[in-house]
């Protein structure tokens, strides 16, 4: 796969014979989960104030495999206290020291890539070939990118006049709250942690309650590297732990990835505390195939067919899932026929099997929601060209949460074209010409991602500039390098992640305005 800039070669040590990784806590497993995880506050694990834990289920089989602290407001308070205490020292660390920490975390992750990949697949349900080739290599690179970015960051010196100088320094915000989604638990935590730590902040992080466990496997690997209190993890439910974190009067910023209603609630809390937010709230991304894509049946055409099929990556549980395919009418029938052939080849099965291309949806309620959209799609008159149902797998997998890759043909006004289903469900329609394509592409409340496929360079450029979205992949899709800004237009959110510009989202600007003049200004 070429999901990252420079794919890393991974030596796999999966069980001989089948090549299928053993499930955690079974013979031959490369990783085992503890039976229980507490909150991590001030550099040590502490039981939740409530004394309560909740069971964590693997979507692979639908069965519980560990239990996790049910954190509440007192735990959040303790974590914020610990983070501020750590900040007294952490804020004065040199960029060299902070960059070194990030690089050491990256090295430790790289040495344990396979272990982390299996842990992530077990917690989330995504196929192991994605965690091995994308989630973990991207997370490792992300830490390294921000280690480099913070070293290269410059302040400013402005000579206002001969005797007056403005100095601009970057200073950390302090303690920040981060609420992590469940679709890429480790990678999304990394997107938030790496720039925050690089910039000199201390963090209180709340993992998603659907995927609360893999970050503790990560933490177990790196916690000896991180000064006490710099990273604190409070698990729990949104209403009990997330909301107290988001409205905590002593945090200086909230970063959230999720949906629009919670995004509004977080802004509401932030307005009460007068703090900034960054929000990444999803999308309904168009993937546009212009007619010249089909001018030849060459490797470029093959690449475009893969682009058509990218809606199934991560079971469609990606904020930028290319969930609307727009295909030009002149080549529609033939291109769609070839695209469906590619979709048919998606191998669904055990997420721990390296040949599996699509695994389990992350939770039962997520699967139920997708099924409800398959239902409304049919009711609205959309035609299922392939898939359209739950996938029934055998053996241990029978209790897991699996959905068939589905392609619906319909109109852009239908709800399945307008709402984020967050499943392997593609809404397919056609367009007549450039203006029609852009009009359909932009007829959405969101503007996070988009795809443009064309051989004509001028056409690519014009389309990319005309689409109202923060990221327009051109002749590619689903690449997430740390060095490219990611974020949304319209209702897809506020702010960006990735890229060195992300440092600004975790920094204050300190201006020292200094007069070197010998005498008074002359006013008094």
């Amino acid at each position, binding site marked *: 796969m070429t999901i990252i800039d420079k794919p890393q070669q991974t030596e796999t040590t999966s069980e001989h014979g089948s090549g299928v990784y053993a499930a955690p806590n079974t013979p031959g497993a490369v990783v085992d989960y503890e039976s229980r995880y507490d909150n991590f506050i001030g550099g040590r694990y502490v039981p939740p104030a409530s004394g309560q834990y909740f069971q964590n289920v693997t979507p692979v089989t639908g069965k519980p495999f560990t239990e996790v602290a049910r954190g509440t407001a007192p735990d959040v308070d303790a974590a914020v206290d610990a983070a501020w205490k750590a900040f007294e020292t952490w804020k004065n660390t040199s960029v060299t020291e902070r960059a070194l920490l990030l690089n050491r975390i990256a090295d430790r992750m790289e040495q344990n890539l396979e272990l982390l990949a299996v842990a992530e697949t077990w917690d989330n349900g995504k196929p192991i070939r994605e965690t091995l080739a994308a989630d973990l290599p991207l997370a490792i690179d992300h830490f390294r990118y921000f280690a480099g970015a913070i070293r290269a960051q410059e302040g400013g010196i402005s000579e206002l006049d001969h005797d007056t100088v403005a100095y601009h320094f970057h200073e950390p915000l302090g303690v920040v709250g981060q609420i992590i989604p469940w679709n890429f638990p480790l990678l999304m935590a990394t997107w938030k942690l790496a720039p925050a730590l690089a910039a000199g902040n201390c963090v209180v992080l709340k993992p998603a309650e659907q995927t609360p466990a893999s970050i503790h496997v990560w933490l177990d690997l790196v916690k000896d590297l991180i000064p006490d209190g710099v990273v604190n993890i409070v698990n729990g*439910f949104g209403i009990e732990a997330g909301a107290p974190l988001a409205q905590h009067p002593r945090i200086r910023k909230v970063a959230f990835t999720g*949906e629009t209603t*919670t995004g509004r609630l977080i802004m509401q809390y932030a307005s009460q505390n007068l703090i900034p937010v960054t929000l990444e709230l999803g999308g309904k991304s168009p993937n546009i195939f212009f007619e010249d894509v089909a001018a030849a049946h060459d490797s470029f055409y093959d690449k475009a067919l893969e682009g058509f099929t990218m809606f199934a990556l991560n079971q469609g549980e990606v904020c930028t899932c290319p969930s609307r395919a727009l295909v030009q009418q002149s080549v529609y029938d033939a291109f769609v026929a070839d695209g469906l052939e590619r979709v048919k080849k998606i191998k669904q099965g055990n997420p721990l099997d390296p040949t599996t291309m699509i695994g389990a949806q992350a939770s039962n309620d997520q699967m139920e929601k997708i099924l409800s959209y398959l239902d409304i799609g049919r*009711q609205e008159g959309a035609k299922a060209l392939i898939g359209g149902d739950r996938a029934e797998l055998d053996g241990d997998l029978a209790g897991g949460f699996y959905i068939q890759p589905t392609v619906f043909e319909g109109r852009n006004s239908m*709800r399945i074209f*307008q709402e984020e289903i967050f499943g392997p469900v593609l809404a397919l329609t056609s367009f007549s010409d450039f203006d029609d394509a852009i009009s359909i592409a932009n007829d959405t409340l969101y503007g996070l991602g988009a795809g443009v496929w064309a051989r004509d360079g001028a056409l690519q450029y014009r389309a990319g500039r005309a689409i109202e979205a923060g990221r327009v992949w051109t002749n590619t899709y689903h690449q997430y390098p740390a060095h490219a800004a990611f974020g949304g237009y319209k209702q897809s959110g506020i702010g960006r992640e990735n890229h060195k510009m992300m440092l600004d989202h975790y920094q204050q600007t300190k201006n020292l305005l200094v007069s070197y003049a010998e005498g008074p200004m002359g006013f008094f």
Partner: protein
Amino acid sequence: MNESSGAPTTLSRVDVTDAAAELLRHLSASYGPLMFHQSGGCCDGSSPMCYPVGMFQTGPSDELLGVLHVEGIEPVPVYMSKAQFEYWKYTHLTIDVVDGRGSGFSIEAPEGKRFLIRSRMLTDEELAALGLG
């Protein structure tokens, strides 16, 4: 699905199943009067978020779809952003509940339950009555 009513006796855009009504009664005992706001977007999006009245500020950008009448508790208003409503206005929504976890800050998550929207297309008669025919 346990529809609490078949064909609506009065014109309504929203309804609630018996199972969801039971959960609302249970939650209301702890939280008092409740409301829903339908989310859009990522992860837990496209889901009804249940909050105690007063927790989530609605405003001019929201549409009140209707009010759920659940025996034993205060009426439960159901909102959605106006922009999203433009795409939903032809559908009737029934709030149901499934086993699950996690839903932003929606209050049922700790119960191991998740509210879910079931949809059906409004009939021609209903659309006409709503001025959409």
